[in-house]
């Protein structure tokens, strides 16, 4: 009796499936690489801003230096403070990261002009370079009032965005998703406000 060996499966179909899988894997890797290149390439529009001084580092850990604003020791104006904050891939992402950093408690020895507990609900940019920053209601309910402190609160946000991001020309603050006349009865928030360094004392 002649032993018969079972017929080997044809080699050709198995080889074709392997090549197909390899091709799919290559396409996948190329897609991921392209996405990573697009997502983490520094945007051209921020080349002149402090935000452009991103150090070379792994993309998910890159940080930038941004100028944030706090109340001076005298309490009568704002002072700039250079802080490291996460890098944002696009102007709107960077704007959100700047505002989130600005809403954090002030570093040691400094005071924030923004009421504690204020959070950012949303931020978006228009084609005209106007940033709309939607803050939580604590920015109103936690505000002590007075035109001085109200001006310092408003221009902390306005200046943090317009000083660091050249693509942002003006900022309008919204509260709880709605446009408001003022935060505390004084500073006109019915339209976007431009950078105003008259409220800022240079140095610390």
């Amino acid at each position, binding site marked *: 009796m002649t032993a018969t060996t079972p017929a080997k499966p044809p080699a050709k179909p198995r080889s074709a499936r392997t090549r197909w899988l390899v091709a799919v894997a290559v396409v996948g890797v190329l897609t991921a690489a392209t996405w990573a290149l697009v997502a983490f390439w520094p945007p051209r529009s921020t080349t002149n801003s402090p935000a452009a001084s991103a150090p070379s580092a792994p993309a998910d850990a890159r940080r930038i230096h941004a100028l944030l604003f706090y109340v001076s020791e005298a309490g009568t104006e704002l002072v700039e403070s250079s802080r490291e904050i996460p890098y944002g891939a696009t102007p709107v992402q960077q704007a959100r990261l700047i505002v989130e950093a600005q809403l954090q408690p002030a570093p040691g020895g400094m005071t924030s002009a923004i009421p504690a507990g204020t959070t950012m609900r949303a931020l978006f940019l228009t084609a005209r370079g106007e940033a709309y920053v939607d803050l939580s209601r604590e920015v109103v309910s936690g505000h*002590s009032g007075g035109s001085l402190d109200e001006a310092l609160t408003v221009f902390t946000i306005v200046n943090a965005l317009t000083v660091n991001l050249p693509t942002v020309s003006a900022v309008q603050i919204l509260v709880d998703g709605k446009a408001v006349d003022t935060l505390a009865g004084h500073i006109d928030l019915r339209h976007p*406000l431009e950078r105003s360094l008259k409220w800022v004392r240079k140095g610390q």
Partner: protein
Amino acid sequence: MLVDLRMPQVASRIDRQGAVNGRLVVEFQPATAHRVSRDGGNLVVRFEADQLDSSPLVGVLPDFVKSVRIDGPALVFELGPKVADIRTTEESERIVIDLLAQATAPAAPARANQPQDTPSVDPTAPPSVRTIVIDPGHGGDDEGVHGASGTIEKDLTLQVAKRLKAALESRGGVRVLLARDGDDNVPVDRRAALANNNKADLFISLHANASMKPEIRGAQVLSLNLDDYKRRGQGGVGASKPVPVVGGGTRVIDAVPWELAQIPFASRSALLASMVAQHLADRNVPMFGRATDVAPLGVLVGANMPAVLVEMGFLTNADDERTLASGGDVVGALVDAIAATVVEIRNGIPQPPAQRPIR
């Protein structure tokens, strides 16, 4: 300055010319085309501009000019009873208008029928300030600043506003309206609208300040910061448009966007702020480091007249809260300083300062 906005700076003054005549001089920069005309009892100097950045009239001669107001790109002088004729000399950046007294003019028969007109004119009558709107800041559920000892800003502003109204009415003889006379929440635009609708000559908003630093104290007088409204002014102001009138036909009116109403008055408001601050300091009211300042103040931007916001002191400072809440000398000095400013404006301002003295 505003981009794309033609707003020449205009200053005018009136003096006696000889024994019986008056001379009105209107100076402006840059050189701007203009036209001088008579309109009933008014003398109108209309510029080819969008708005005017005009200083208050210097000098008081109510027999020749009773008042002056800005009407879009025009200065409208309400002529006094002595003016029978005018003679105009125009230069590139200046107009000299000789106001010739009745005695030197040809016969004016219309006057003969109203001989009582001239004697009835009080030479001390206010040339420009007849109605003032006082705005007690905050109100209703908008309570403003809370002092550590329990003083609430909305109550303080109303108390001081009522005292100021009484002082101005008795001492100044002007009509005073309050933007609120109870504990009401009045939107900022409604406060300015009250002044506009009543053709107020001055708008004064009373507030108390706050700081996270309790040692900060002192009064401050604020006016509108034009720089914060550059974007909004780029569309131009004062566009004329025809509107239909009763009985048919149309009438051309100058439409001024609400949010730009204060812009032509910004320099006069800054001057008003300086005057109030000076009178406060003269009366030993403690002053904030920046006695005057400018800011994008929502309650002022819609006011169609000189307008300031007076921060009377910091309720977050124990001394300021105590002196303001007591209603004593400091409040009396505040009221007196504002009343003195109104009287000074009525009597004419000696020199129009080119720059605000304190910033």
